[in-house]
């Protein structure tokens, strides 16, 4: 309903017009409402901002709580000792080498208040210190090292002095828990954590791999076997007055090396610069004429090519044969007619030579190539020797057939024996476990391998055999001896025995080598049930004896640890 506006008869001059009053009223209202809206908007904006901040904060808290602990551990990385190099362990997880925190002791002369007092304190605790040298260095005023690689005792002594000027610089040092035991295999590292020899050098990159620092590098060696073999070889050095010795124990099926010993050895913790040739790794780096060991290869090749059988008789074997300028003969007198296996059992040079002539140079060369006898072997050490190459001259086949005029490393010789006795499969020696080591290459057939195993067993059991002292009960040891002389110095000789056991189905090959052994005058042998003393300096009286002692000690360990015997009871018989 419209309002009726009456005209005012007496208009008030002060009275504003209705229109303008209304305008102001509404304007005020509008302004008020606008202000109210602005205020609200500001409040809402502030609320929104704070809410967003709180939301971001809450999300961050949730994110941190859901993330791994490494996120929160990063701040503590400075205190934590982070390894720069992986551990090395043996096949049973026993530690061989590890990085530890060590310290260098240094002096900052600027922090020394009373120099005389300082020097007196040092001298009291370390009487062997060169006082004048340190005094001069303190006078120079420059930071210098008092002693590098201090041990715990020395650190505690210096710490107890309580001088601010003595500073301990941390660094990582590599320690080897077994000192001499693995000196030729593990090698050493320098102060900057670089491998300089052995496995430390060969696997330098893998050992420094940051992704694998918590996983140790596992090698195939066994600490216990290594210790036992090392101990027996050390005994042999004194018993036979040898200048050096070596041993290698290998799994014939996989090529894994369970023990590798070369004497003399050295303490790798001492970080000595070893230059003397006598500390050479004789098993991998040493290149030798191994002698009669090669006769097994000749006989195996002849059997494989079906030129002869084990029982084939070689008639009219002469006492000596002249070939060019060489006069080849045997040390002992043998019967004129010998079977092939007797030739190997008795170790007849002439008999082997005649077999080799039947094989022919071409096939013999091929066998040597297939066996990689004259090539540098592939191995996980840089210290590997290269056999000396030669030309196949007029009498080369004859001399090579019984192991003269041809050189190889003991590592290669053992690998070939492993290949001959494991069914004929060529294997590659290794220090790192592999799932499959079969190279799918065959050196000889399975039947030839079985025949060779039987003949090698007879070398040990036969009365005419040269390795009777290795006939340890229960292990069915087979093998071949090798006695060779140094052509330049006939007094120097090398006596070797490569054995395989158990010979029915060989699992292990053991090489034992003695450098320049002498006759052990005080040693009494238990030879086929009787007590005798040795008079000849041959492998059958020293290397074989040592191999027998080693097999006696390591046999129970190998028998118990072998995979065939897992999950079965091993009971000791008590009397």
């Amino acid at each position, binding site marked *: 309903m419209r309002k009726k506006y009456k005209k005012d008869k007496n208009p008030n001059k002060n009275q504003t017009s209705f229109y303008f009053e209304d305008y102001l009223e509404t304007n005020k209202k509008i302004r008020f409402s606008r202000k109210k809206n602005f205020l609200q908007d500001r409040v809402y904006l502030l609320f929104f901002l704070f809410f967003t901040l709180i939301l971001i904060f809450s999300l961050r808290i949730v994110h941190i709580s859901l993330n791994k602990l490494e996120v929160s551990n990063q701040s503590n990385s400075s*205190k934590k*000792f982070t390894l720069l190099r992986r551990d090395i362990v043996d096949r049973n997880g026993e530690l061989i080498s590890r990085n530890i925190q060590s310290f260098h002791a240094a002096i900052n002369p600027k922090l020394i208040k009373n120099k005389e007092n300082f020097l007196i304190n040092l001298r009291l605790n370390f009487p062997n210190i060169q006082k004048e040298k340190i005094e001069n260095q303190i006078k120079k005023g420059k930071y210098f090292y008092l002693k590098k690689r201090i041990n715990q005792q020395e650190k505690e002594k210096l710490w107890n002095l309580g001088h601010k000027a003595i500073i301990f610089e941390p660094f990582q040092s590599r320690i080897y828990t077994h000192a001499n035991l693995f000196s030729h295999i593990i090698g050493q590292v320098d102060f900057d954590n670089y491998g300089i020899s052995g496995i430390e050098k060969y696997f330098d990159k893998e050992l420094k791999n940051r992704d694998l620092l918590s996983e140790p590098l596992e090698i195939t060696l066994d600490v216990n076997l290594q210790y036992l073999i090392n101990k027996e070889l050390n005994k042999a050095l004194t018993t036979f007055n040898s200048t050096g010795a070596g041993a290698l124990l290998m799994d014939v099926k996989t090529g894994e090396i369970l023990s590798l010993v070369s004497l003399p050895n050295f303490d790798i913790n001492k970080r000595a610069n070893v230059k003397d040739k006598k500390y050479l790794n004789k098993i991998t780096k040493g290149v030798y004429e191994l002698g009669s060991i090669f006769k097994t290869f000749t006989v195996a090749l002849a059997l494989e090519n079906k030129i002869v059988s084990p029982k084939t008789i070689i008639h009219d074997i002469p006492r000596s044969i002249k070939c060019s300028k060489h006069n080849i003969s045997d040390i002992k007198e043998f019967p004129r007619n010998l079977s092939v296996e007797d030739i190997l059992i008795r170790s007849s040079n002439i008999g082997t030579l005649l077999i080799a002539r039947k094989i022919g140079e071409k096939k013999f060369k091929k066998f040597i190539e297939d066996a990689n006898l004259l090539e540098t072997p592939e191995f996980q050490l840089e210290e590997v020797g290269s056999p000396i190459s030669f030309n196949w001259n007029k009498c080369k086949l004859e001399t090579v057939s019984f192991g003269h005029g041809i050189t190889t490393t003991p590592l290669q010789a053992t690998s070939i024996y492993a290949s001959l006795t494991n069914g004929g499969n060529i294997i590659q020696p290794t220090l790192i476990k592999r799932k499959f080591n079969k190279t799918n290459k065959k050196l000889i057939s399975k039947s030839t391998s079985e025949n060779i195993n039987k003949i090698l067993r007879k070398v040990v059991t036969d009365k005419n055999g040269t390795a009777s002292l290795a006939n340890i009960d229960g292990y069915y040891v087979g093998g071949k001896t090798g006695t060779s002389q140094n052509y330049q110095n006939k007094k120097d000789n090398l006596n070797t025995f490569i054995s395989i056991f158990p010979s029915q189905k060989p699992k292990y090959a053991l090489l034992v080598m003695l450098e320049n052994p002498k006759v052990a005058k005080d040693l009494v042998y238990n030879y086929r049930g009787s007590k005798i003393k040795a008079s000849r300096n041959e492998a059958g009286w020293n290397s074989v004896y040592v191999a027998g002692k080693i097999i006696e000690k390591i046999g129970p360990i190998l*028998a118990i640890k072998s995979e065939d015997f897992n999950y*079965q*009871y091993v009971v000791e018989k008590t009397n």
Partner: protein
Amino acid sequence: MYKFKLCISIIFFSLLLVGTSIIKNETRDLEKKIDNLNEHIVSKEKDLNETQLDFFYLTSPYVLEQRIQNLDINIYIPMKHSNIFLSFLSFVELQNKFVIQEIQNEKKIQKR
């Protein structure tokens, strides 16, 4: 209505503010605890490392042999292969043979 909304917003905002500061403080306390625990872990790891080294050195064949020689009177010789039995059955079989042999021997003695 406006006042109601404003009140609710302020209450909600205050609650969030207080809640955030509580969470923040708790988080800081937790981080301190984590830091302390990490320090403990680092020192325990160091101790474990050193103990492991001691263990590996003290159980090395050389040290064990020295201790046996020093502490024990017995001389240990390698175990003969004939004393190793690959299964309990083979041990029992051998024992049975010994028992049978003993019984036969006793019978022979009685007959005499």
